[in-house]
């Protein structure tokens, strides 16, 4: 399998693990030194740094998942990611690869009612650890700046 194919698989796995509610496994798609953030396109366009979620380490990412499992209350829902084609922006030799992909995220409630929850773009950087691709940085840009209800599950 080529490195490009491996990276494409990684992105597919990223959405599939969240949708399957396997968030602990999802965290393991990240490199040991990693960052994860969610920011509105609105703030980004104004060059404003304010995020909706921001984890600057894998431990912080794990804390997010633990709080989601054990502590926070939120609307019961299931997620369904539809992730578009991966655009390879920079395939550095040695350095991290930079990729982008569009996503739409549908949420379904306990009554089976589905809504389009969020739309946006992943801005990702990927490193290879033991030849396996892992996310060093995932910045989730949310076009839907006004979040419907609340945001509990990672996007």
């Amino acid at each position: 399998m080529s490195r490009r194919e491996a990276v494409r698989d990684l992105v597919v796995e990223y959405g599939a693990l969240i949708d399957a509610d396997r968030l602990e496994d999802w965290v393991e798609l990240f490199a040991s030194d990693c960052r994860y953030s969610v920011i509105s396109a609105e703030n980004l366009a104004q060059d404003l740094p304010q995020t909706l979620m921001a984890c600057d380490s894998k431990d912080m990412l794990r804390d997010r998942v633990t709080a989601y499992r054990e502590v926070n209350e939120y609307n019961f829902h299931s997620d369904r990611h539809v992730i578009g084609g991966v655009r390879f922006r920079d395939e550095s030799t040695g350095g991290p690869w930079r990729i982008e992909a569009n996503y739409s995220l549908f949420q379904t409630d306990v009554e089976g009612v589905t809504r389009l929850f969020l739309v946006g773009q992943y801005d990702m950087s990927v490193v290879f650890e033991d030849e396996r691709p892992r996310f060093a940085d995932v910045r989730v840009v949310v076009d839907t700046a006004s979040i419907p209800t609340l945001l509990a599950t990672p996007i």
Partner: protein
Amino acid sequence: MTLVNDPGFTVDWPRDDYSRIPYWLFHDPKVYELERARIFRGPVWNYLGLEAEIPKPDDFRTTFVGDIPVVVARAGDGTVHAFVNRCAHRGAQIVRTTHGSAKDFVCIYHRWCYSLEGDLIGIPFKRGLKGQGGMADFDMAANGPEKLRVASLSGMIFGTFSAHTEPLEGYLGAFGCGLIERMLGKPIRIYGYQRQVIHANWKFYAENLRDTYHASLLHTFLSSYGIDRATQKGGVKMDGRHRHSMNYAFAATDGQDEARAAYAGNSGVSLDRLKLRDGSLMRYVPEFEDGMNLATPTFFPNVLLIQVNNVLSTRQIRPKGKDAFEVFQTLFGYADDDEAMTRHRLKQSNLVGPAGYVSMEDGEAIELAHRASASSQGFTSVIEMGGRGPIRDLEHRVTDVPVRGFWSYWSELMGVEPVGGVR
């Protein structure tokens, strides 16, 4: 024409101390319409934004007063103006962006032109063409968009539609002015916005902000990680009219044993059972002389300032019809923060907003209340934690007394107070 003082409906209050609120007040379209006239266009000061968001002449932002679209702009002479974002001609929205910088505003429909002060200054073909058509005798000065009276305190901008609104300082009182000065008394840096649409009536959120009882029970992040709990020294304060309120707490003022005993047996809340892998999230860098690490001064009708440890923001409720509202939060730090403090504040902002560790629950709880109460014909809520009867400040936080304060002033403005209603 209906009588000015006739609300068009009557409220059958079960009690005169607002300890029972009929649910239909959240769901009836007539109530929502009257709130626009009597609350948001009434004798109140509505939050419009922060001066730091429009620092230079010609800068503008669009906002809402209730659900009325408003432009806030800084004119060439530096003064701040606000006017309804609705063309005087045919009602179209004039300014179509959230922010920017402009010498004037032009409605795209027929290109009527407005100054930053909100004056109508140009009408194409006003004198007609070749002696035909036009509306030459139209008085532009008398037909501009509606303007708001604007006042600002420590860079926090307020506007009012009513000629009868008392001066801003009096409206906020020493209570409010002191708290605004406390948080906005030095130059700030805007970090950005967090927005969220909650599908519920805006008053459910107005109540939530004044209900300190729910905080450590619904938002169990704080108690689960042993960081903040109702056993800390704190309380609620209100202004003289009980329309504004504040929830406050002092860091590290309760003992572990006291807290454990208090929470024992409360299902769903267990104290410090978890530990953050990255504890720096919760670090509190003392920065206010009064020692408070939590302060949420809430101003009638729909804005609050927030300090949660070192996270600072304003939060505005923007009604979107009777069944939805947007929570519009503007986060900031101080201009003299060093790089490390800026990073700290941004990291700690994981606590707040639609994805906030200590705030996300509100979106769900409020939608649950709205959803289930919609069909509750004749039923009321129960608001008597912390006491019935007179509305007063308390030196603890197991209370929803300020919720009754909100309803008292709401009822006064709406003209629906019960006979002998507490104030």
